[in-house]
């Protein structure tokens, strides 16, 4: 396979990274690399190994095998130098509830060894950036979920990181807050910050990520640009019909069409069949029959299956 990053500077290089917890294989074999300035996504169902991969990347969890380099440095030995230059946004809001909004930023700045004057200055800038200046004296548990998320984001930026690591940054947010977070991430990317992100939301990944991997059972299933993956695995258009008739099933099988039957519903990936929708609606449509764009969610479900993960 052609290296999509040939010639580019690698910010993260995970090579056959592996993570075992006693008998459980959390990450089996994950290889990926992120170029400077890239927004890279890790997608996968629950338990696929996303968070373990993230935790290995910033050195909170030692690798059981393989190697992981950030900024060209080995995370196993040079974790401190690496962590000076990255920001991490955890999945759960682990803000310091013993302190106020501004204090959370200033004390966290202290963990990076920033002077008090510098901490104060950066806290002010970041409070403006996340539009939380008006709540700077509030206690953390007085904030809404969206505000907390923005504060976690601001906190992860306190050391002006070159690489930002975000574990499900918008889970549990309302659409307004989610869009605001996306907005900020786009701004950061424009400023040249490299971003590694995990998410459950395919729309989010498709919108934000330059490239992504879909992982499952601790292994990389596919890697690529969102649009390329859609084109390769589902095509630009998808037909959904319900209920699906036996005649339609026979038609799909006889023609060798790429399709999935889910109970009474059928999903048909059109790929190169421009006139398929016309044929299908004229001959086989009994109820609802819709033509829509192929999405990353189609790719995701096709590759990782539709069983529930718990």
């Amino acid at each position, binding site marked *: 396979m052609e290296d999509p990053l040939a010639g580019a500077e690698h910010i993260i290089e995970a090579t056959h990274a592996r993570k075992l*917890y006693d008998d459980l294989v959390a990450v089996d074999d994950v290889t990926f690399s992120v170029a400077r300035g890239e927004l890279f996504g890790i997608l996968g169902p629950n338990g696929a190994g996303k968070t373990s991969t993230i935790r290995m990347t*910033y050195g*909170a*969890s*030692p690798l059981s095998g393989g190697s992981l380099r950030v900024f060209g440095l080995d995370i196993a030995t040079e974790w*401190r*130098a690496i*962590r*000076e230059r*990255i*920001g*991490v946004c*955890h999945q*759960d809001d*682990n*803000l*310091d*509830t*013993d*302190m106020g909004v501004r*204090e959370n930023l200033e*004390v*966290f700045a*202290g*963990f*990076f*060894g920033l002077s008090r004057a510098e901490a104060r200055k950066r806290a002010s800038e970041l409070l403006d950036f996340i539009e939380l200046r008006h709540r700077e004296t509030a206690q953390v548990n007085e904030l809404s979920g969206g505000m907390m998320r923005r504060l976690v984001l601001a*906190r*992860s930026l306190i*050391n002006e990181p070159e690489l930002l690591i975000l574990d499900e940054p918008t889970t549990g947010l309302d659409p307004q807050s989610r869009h605001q977070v996306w907005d900020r991430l786009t701004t950061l990317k424009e400023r040249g910050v490299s971003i590694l992100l995990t998410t459950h939301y395919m729309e989010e990944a498709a919108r934000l990520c330059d490239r992504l991997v879909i992982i499952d059972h601790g292994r990389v299933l596919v890697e690529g640009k969102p649009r390329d993956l859609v084109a390769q695995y589902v095509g630009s258009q998808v037909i959904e019909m319900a209920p699906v008739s036996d005649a339609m099933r026979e038609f799909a099988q006889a023609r060798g069409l790429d399709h999935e039957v889910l109970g009474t519903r059928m999903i048909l990936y059109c790929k190169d069949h421009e006139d398929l929708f016309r044929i299908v609606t004229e001959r086989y449509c009994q109820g609802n029959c819709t033509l829509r764009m192929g999405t990353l969610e189609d790719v995701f479900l096709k590759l990782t299956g539709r069983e529930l993960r718990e």
Partner: protein
Amino acid sequence: MSTAAPNLTWRFMRVWRRDWIVNLKSLHISFLVPLFEPVLYVAAFGVGFRLLIPQVTFSGLTVSYVAFMAPALIATSIMYNAFFENTFTSFVRMFYQKTYDAMLATPLSIEEVITGEIVWGATKSVMAAIVMTAVLAVCRLVAFPQGLLLVPLALLGGLAFGSIAMIFTGLVKHIDMFNLPIFLFLTPMFLFSGTFFPIDTLPDWAQRLAYTFPLTHLVTLARSMCFNLLTWKAALISGGYLVLFTGFCFPLALRVMRRRLIK
């Protein structure tokens, strides 16, 4: 696999500073307890016990019961302050507030986080000891200059009890389980470490047992300091015991917490 040495630097003071800043918000509460506790005890034992136990004899000295007991108040307060800070409070930060997880995404090692917490617990011991010493000095129950040694003693005692507290924090599954070490470890020490009566009134086997308690040595040192009677020998034996106890518990606390948090 742990290479503790390079992982522990002065950066632990950044963690200490976080605890200090949070504590400043409730400073009045941290001072009220050590301020009034000795007053209450001195009043209760000074007034109420005076007729029952007029005097106590220890190391060839005959003193009032209040004067005998007062140094033990400082010693137990050193123990409780560090122990509670590094059990309940540290557990809340680790388990519920996920404060350590956030810190471990910064250039801090787990060893520095835990050291900062233990040194903070010892700081609370020192603050309590200073306030109590001042109160008891006003009551003429602390002699100087040796009374000033109670401050470094509080630091050493705080590190000792904070370290063993942190070991429990690294081991317990649930916050309620701290009642076990409190009942099996703290309470017997509180009662039998020469706190409320001289150890030599105990049977031989119990005396030998009592000398294995770290609190016994803390009380012994605090009492000799309060009477200006500290000898080099006592300082070496009891002080040496506390140093060894800390020297054993502190690295163990770091290892237990690393095993718990770095997975």
